[in-house]
C-alpha cells in the first residue's frame, strides 16, 4: 500500500514537465514547393489537349472505358487541391501538430496524377502496364528490403543486399539452366544469399569487424566474382549454363479480373506470390511471435536480451542468414522472371535502393514495401511517359525515381530511429 502512495502515477506528474512545443515546418515547406512547381508546370506552362488513361488490358473481363481528361483543366484542379492541402499543413504546423501521413499521401497522389496528366497530354497512358512494370521493378527491391529489415532488426547492418541479390541472380540462372527447373534455381538463389550472409555474419558477429565495411566489401566481391565468372564461363557457354527456364504466369482466378490493379498484382509468376507471402510473414513474425520479440530485443538492447537468457550472437547469426535467403530470392526474379538469363551487374544498384527503402520504411516490413513500390512506380512511370512522348528530357526522367526517393526519405519521413543496437557488435562481458 505504501508504495502506491510513494510513487506518483504517470498522469499525476506535475504539469510543468509538459513537452516542449516543437513546430516543424518541413512538410508545409515541401508542399509549398510542389504547389509552386505545379502552378508553373500545369498552369503557366500548361499544355492544351486531352490525356487519355487506358484502364483495361485487352484480356480483361471487365472492360473499363478509356478515361479522357482535359489536360489544362485537370492541372488547375490539381493546383487548387495542392494549395488547399498546403494551407491545411501550414495550419497544423502552426498549432504544432503533426501533419498526418494520410494528408501527405493524398498530396503525393494528387500531385502525381497532375504530373501524369500534364506529361502525357495528347497521348494515351496505359495504366495496367504502368502498374505491371512498377511491380516488376519493385519485386527485387521488396525482397531486398525485407532482408534488410530482418537483418537490421536483429542488430546487424546489411549493406550487402546488393551482393545477395546479385549472387541470387547469378546462381539461380546457372542452377536453373543445369537442372531445367526454375524452382530449384529459386532455392539455389536463396542458398547463394545465405552464403553471402554467412560471410557477413562471420566477420561482423564472430570477428567484430565493422558491419558497414564488411557489407561494402561483400558487394564489391560479388560484383567482381560474378563479372569474372560471367565473362570466363557463362558468356562462352550460354546455351548450357545461362539459358534458364522461366516461371510461367499463374493468373489467380477472380482476383486477376479486378479492373486496373488486378492484372498487375494477380497475373504474375510464383515469385511475386511468394513475395506477398514473405511480406506478411516477416511482418507477422516480427511483431506477433516470440521469435520476433526476441529478434527486436536483440536489436534494441542486446544486454537486456542476454540477461533473460537469449543467446544474442546465435540469434543474430541465424537471422542474418535468414535475411540473406530472403534477399537472394529477390535475385532469382532477375534471371527466372524478368528476362531468362543473367547479365553482368544485372541488379544495377537495386540493393542500395532496397537499403534506402529499409530506412525510409522505418525498419517496418510493410512501410519498407511501400517505399520500394514508390521507387518502382516512379521508375515505371518514367518509361511510360517517355513512350507516350513526354516533353521532359530522358536524363531528367531517369533521375525521377531517385529524386522522389530522396525527397521522401529526407523530407517526409524526417528523423527515423533504427534499432538501437544496429551496427554495434555484442561483446559478452
Amino acid at each position, binding site marked *: 500500500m505504501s508504495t502506491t502512495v510513494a510513487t506518483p502515477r504517470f498522469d499525476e506528474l506535475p504539469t510543468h514537465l509538459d513537452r516542449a512545443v516543437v513546430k516543424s515546418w518541413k512538410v508545409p515547406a515541401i508542399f509549398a514547393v510542389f504547389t509552386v512547381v505545379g502552378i508553373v508546370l500545369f498552369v503557366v506552362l500548361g499544355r492544351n489537349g486531352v490525356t487519355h488513361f487506358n484502364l483495361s488490358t485487352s484480356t480483361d473481363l471487365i472492360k473499363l472505358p478509356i478515361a479522357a481528361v482535359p489536360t489544362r483543366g485537370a492541372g488547375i484542379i490539381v493546383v487548387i487541391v495542392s494549395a488547399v492541402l498546403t494551407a491545411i499543413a501550414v495550419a497544423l504546423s502552426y498549432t504544432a501538430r503533426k501533419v498526418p501521413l494520410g494528408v501527405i499521401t493524398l498530396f503525393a497522389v494528387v500531385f502525381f496524377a497532375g504530373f501524369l496528366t500534364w506529361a502525357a497530354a495528347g497521348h494515351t497512358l496505359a495504366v495496367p*502496364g504502368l502498374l505491371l*512494370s512498377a511491380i516488376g521493378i519493385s519485386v527485387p527491391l521488396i525482397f531486398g528490403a525485407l532482408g534488410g529489415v530482418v537483418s537490421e532488426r536483429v542488430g546487424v547492418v546489411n549493406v550487402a543486399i546488393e551482393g545477395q541479390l546479385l549472387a541470387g541472380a547469378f546462381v539461380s540462372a546457372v542452377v536453373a539452366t543445369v537442372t531445367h527447373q526454375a524452382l530449384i534455381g529459386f532455392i539455389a538463389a536463396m542458398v547463394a544469399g545465405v552464403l553471402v550472409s554467412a560471410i557477413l555474419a562471420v566477420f561482423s558477429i564472430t570477428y567484430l569487424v565493422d558491419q558497414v565495411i564488411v557489407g561494402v566489401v561483400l558487394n564489391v566481391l560479388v560484383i567482381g566474382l560474378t563479372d569474372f565468372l560471367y*565473362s570466363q564461363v557463362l558468356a562462352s557457354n550460354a546455351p548450357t549454363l545461362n539459358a534458364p527456364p522461366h516461371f510461367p504466369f499463374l493468373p489467380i482466378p477472380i482476383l486477376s479480373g479486378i479492373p486496373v490493379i488486378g492484372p498487375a498484382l494477380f497475373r504474375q509468376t510464383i515469385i511475386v506470390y511468394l513475395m506477398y507471402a514473405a511480406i506478411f510473414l516477416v511482418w507477422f513474425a516480427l511483431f506477433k511471435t516470440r521469435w520476433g520479440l526476441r529478434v527486436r530485443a536483440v536489436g534494441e538492447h542486446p544486454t537486456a536480451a542476454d540477461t533473460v537468457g537469449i543467446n544474442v550472437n546465435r540469434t543474430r547469426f541465424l537471422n542474418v542468414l535468414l535475411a540473406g535467403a530472403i534477399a537472394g530470392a529477390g535475385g532469382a526474379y532477375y534471371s527466372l522472371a*524478368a528476362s531468362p538469363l543473367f547479365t553482368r551487374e544485372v541488379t544495377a544498384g537495386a540493393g542500395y535502393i532496397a537499403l534506402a527503402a529499409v530506412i525510409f520504411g522505418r525498419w517496418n516490413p510493410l512501410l519498407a514495401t511501400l517505399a520500394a513500390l514508390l521507387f518502382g512506380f516512379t521508375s*515505371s512511370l518514367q518509361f511510360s511517359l517517355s*513512350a507516350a*512522348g513526354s516533353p521532359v528530357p*530522358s536524363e531528367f526522367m531517369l533521375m525521377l525515381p531517385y529524386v522522389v526517393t530522396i525527397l521522401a526519405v529526407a523530407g517526409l519521413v524526417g528523423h527515423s530511429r533504427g534499432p538501437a543496437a544496429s551496427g554495434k557488435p555484442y561483446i559478452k562481458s
Partner: protein
Amino acid sequence: MRITPSKVAVSALATIATAVLLAGCASAPTATKTTASPVVKGFLPCMVSDNGGFDDHSFNQIGLEGLQSAAKTLGIKEKHVQSNSESDYAPNIANLVAQKCTLIITVGFNLAAATKAAAAANPSIDFATIDDSSTDAANVEPITFRSDQAAFLGGYAAASYSKTGVVGTFGGISIPPVNIFLEGYAEGVAYYNKQKNKDVKVVGWNTTTQTGSFTGGFAAGTEARAAAQAEIDQNADVIFPVGGPIYQSAAQAIKDSGKSIVMVGVDADVYFTDPTVRSILLTSVEKGVGTSVSAVVKQAAAGKFTKTPYVGDLANQGVGLAPFHDFASKVDSGLSAELDQVKADIISGKITVGK
C-alpha cells in the same frame, strides 16, 4: 690459370649470350619471310574494351574479332585488355602503352576522354577510337559509323511490317552513338509514311526534340523490361532496342505479352549471335565494327596511319541491314526491292539521313 667459380660463370654466360646472338641472327630472315604483307617493324596493335567487356555479343566482341582477324592475316601478335568498370579505362591504356603497343584501339564512346588524354601524353603512339570524333589530334583516328543510314532502312522495314501502325524504339543511355540509331529509325518510318501516304507512329524517340526513352544502363534488368513494356502498351508491334544486352529483356517482355510483336536487332545480325530470339526477330541493323577495325589495323600496319576519320556507311558496307531470315515470307513481297532502292538513294545522296 686458376679456374675459379666466378670465371666459369662468366664464360658460361658469355657462351650463352653468343649462342643467343647467333640464334637471333639466324632466325631473323625466316621471320620476315613468313610475313606476307609488309608490316612496319615492331607494329603491335592493341585494344581496350569499354565496361561492356569483350563478351558482350555486341560491339566489343565484334571489334576484338576484327582485330584478331587482321592480326592473323598479317601474321602478327595483338594484345587486348578488358575494362570492367569506368575507372579501368585510363590504367588499361597506360598498361598497353607500357607494353610497347604502337596502335591502341579504344572501343566505345565512353573511352573518348581517356583516349584523348593518353594520345596527348604519348604523341609517338597511334590511337584509333570507335564511336567518337570529338578528338582532333595527329595521332588519333576516329572510327565512326553512319548507323543512322542502316537504321533508316530498319525503320522503313519496321513501318512496312507493322500492323498496328505503331513502332517503338528505346536506347540504353542517351549518347550520340546510341541516339543516331534511334534518329535514323524514326526518319526511316517518316520516309515510309511519306512514300506510302501512311501514318505509322514512332514511340520512344522524337526527332524534333531529340528525346526518347532510355533505360539508363546497358543491363538486361527490370528497367529494360519496363521500357519495352511501356511501348507494348502503346500498341507498338515492332520494337528496336538499342544498347547491347537490353534487347534480351525486350525479347522476354514481347514473349510474355502473348501478342504478335517483333523486334529489330542491333550491331550484329542477332539471328546468328543469339538464336533464342529468332522467332521474334524481324531483322537487324548491323554496324560493321569488325570490318572497320580490321581495315584500320591493316592500314596502320602498312605504315599508312592517318588521322582522317574512318566512316563506315552503306556505301562501304560499314553499316547495313541484315536479311529477314525466318520473316522473309512474312514481310511485304515488294519490301526487299523498295529497301534496295532506298539504300541506293541514300548512297547517291538523293535521300539525306540525319540531322
